[in-house]
């Protein structure tokens, strides 16, 4: 029983990170019709930025996160400009184009920070909490808390603010949005910047849990993408559920199947998607002949 709960806690921690990554994917897809495979590498840049600020400039960790998000947000604006011609193209072109961009980011990171990477000490130095024999790493709770806050902030932004509503409008019909005076290009750029900011947050939070190196983005990106699809691509609440689901699945698979956890995770994922091809919350698209 103890192992069950321990695994649950571990899974939730990673699940929160995957959820943040998935939200970034879905947001960008929903507003711009772009499946951005460079998203994982943006997470990596965010992790590097935050950890570098934290470790060399001795900025407190929770200050370095917003700084990193700002930096990645700016990078996000640049990326959006560069990737704009790929929007609404067919999937393979988008895929390989954004992967190419991801390669550029990865090599730039290697050139800047070296190939080996570095470990990030946990910013929360207290001893783990002991709850009925389950060790809760305090940091995991912090991650969950911050991720939850970010999610609430995003949802409020999209539903309550004018900019957020504008973004939703663009997602539904960008021609109609232009017709009512929404600057689609600017809206897209902001959406992308928010997506990049979410990526940075995910990266910064995950850095002390894992190990920051240029290949960090690869696995996180793929699992985050799977999470976004699992929840229904473009669907923000779906991304959260998908992220948590993948995190838990990953954790339990690692516990039961050890080294074969990835095999199990992706087989289960395939089965779920086969049953519900548009994801758990996704909308079925109607074929308009």
């Amino acid at each position: 029983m103890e192992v069950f709960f321990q695994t649950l806690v571990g899974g939730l921690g990673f699940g929160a990170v995957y959820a943040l990554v998935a939200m970034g994917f879905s947001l960008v897809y929903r507003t711009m019709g772009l499946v951005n495979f460079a998203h994982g590498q943006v997470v990596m840049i965010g992790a590097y930025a935050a950890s570098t600020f934290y470790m060399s400039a001795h900025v407190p960790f929770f200050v370095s996160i917003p700084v990193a998000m700002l930096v990645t947000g700016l990078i996000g604006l640049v990326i959006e400009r560069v990737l704009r011609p790929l929007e609404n193209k067919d999937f393979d072109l988008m895929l390989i184009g954004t992967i190419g961009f991801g390669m550029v980011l990865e090599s730039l990171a290697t050139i800047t920070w070296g190939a080996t990477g570095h470990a990030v000490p946990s910013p929360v130095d207290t001893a783990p909490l002991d709850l009925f024999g389950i060790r809760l790493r305090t940091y995991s709770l912090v991650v969950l808390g911050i991720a939850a806050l970010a999610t609430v902030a995003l949802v409020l932004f999209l539903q309550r603010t004018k900019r957020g509503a504008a973004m939703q409008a663009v997602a539904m019909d960008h021609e109609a949005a232009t017709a009512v005076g929404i600057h689609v290009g600017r809206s897209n750029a902001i959406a992308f910047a928010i997506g990049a900011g979410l990526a940075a947050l995910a990266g910064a939070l995950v850095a002390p849990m894992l190990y920051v190196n240029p290949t960090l983005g690869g696995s996180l990106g793929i699992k985050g993408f799977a999470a976004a699809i699992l929840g229904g691509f473009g669907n923000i609440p779906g991304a959260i559920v998908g992220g948590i689901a993948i995190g838990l699945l990953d954790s339990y698979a690692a516990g039961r199947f050890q080294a074969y956890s990835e095999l199990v995770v992706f087989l289960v994922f395939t089965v779920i998607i086969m049953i519900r091809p548009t994801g758990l919350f996704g909308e079925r698209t109607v074929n308009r002949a």
Partner: protein
Amino acid sequence: MSTQRTKQLVLSAAALMLAASTACSAPGSTSEDQQDAGGPFKIAVVNAQSGQLSSLGQWEWKGAKLAADQWNAKGGINGRKIELELFDDQGDPTVGTNVARKIASEGFVAMIGTAESAVTVAMIPILQQSKIPNITSGQSPAIAATKSPFAFYNGPTSNTYDETLAKYLVDDKGLKKIALISNNGSYGKGERDAFTKALASRGVTPVDDQVVTTDQKDFSAALTSIRQKEPDVLFVGSEEVEAGLIVKQAKELGINATIAGAAPMGTPVYLQTAGEANAEGTVVSSPYLSNDTDDASKAFAKAYQKAHGEAAELHGAKAHDGANIIFTALKNSKGATGQKLADAIRATKYAGLLGDFTFDESGVGIHATSIGVISSGKLTESAK
């Protein structure tokens, strides 16, 4: 000319040429021992320059380069300069085989590397076929198991490391509740097998034996299981970075066992990754504990610091020794290559930073390690 006749002409011309070509000998140079007729000695240094294990590759290159520069400053080998060239195997055994073919076709007389046992094992058949001697820093017994007369170790094998470690932990310290965590790569597997064997010979069965993958980053599942068994010692059989992560997460989960391991635990990368506080008290089995062991190592460390601006460590020292052995063998054999060079290496007796090298049939040169304990960020020899 009509299309029909053009077609016929082209086809018959093609047929003639094909017939002619089959009459000629097959393409490709016949393999003969290339006698290098003077000029610099070309020696390849092969290691991972990218990816998680790239720090090892960097250290090895620096150690070997230092040795080469030192020899060249004294006039080289019998008046001929030494030319080192670095190749990146990307930590990928198949890329390694590619590099091996490249080395074989470009006239290199010997190879230093790699630090990854899996890559080395993959390269050995090709190097054996091309008769290129290789001194590797890998320590997996799998290398010796290939029985290639061209493969040499510049350090002890996992068996030695772990036998010494087991002796210290079980015989000297009386610690019997031992848990293992290792990765399923070539090195990790070698470590696990060697340590389990060393324990078994003392009648000790591990209380837990967890296996993780080489690119795993989160070890909660394995560590939770270990924690439940409440071991006295946690043996870690992984490379530097992964070992550091395992120890860091183990401490975060509240595992208070003594950490023990072999060469990777003696590196600065392990220290940084685990965090100084977490690495405190780690027991390390290594033939090169620190740069202050004796005059030779102090001199080496000083020269290394001067040349490369950073502190020397085990892998640099290993590569330095390995390079020196090759140069010595080249000198003694008067610039021989192929089988003769391999024989010369085997016959070389060299007093190196890791100890006194005497090579045996299996290519192992060093047969003992020491035990050190990390305290306050430094690896110091343990009081016996």
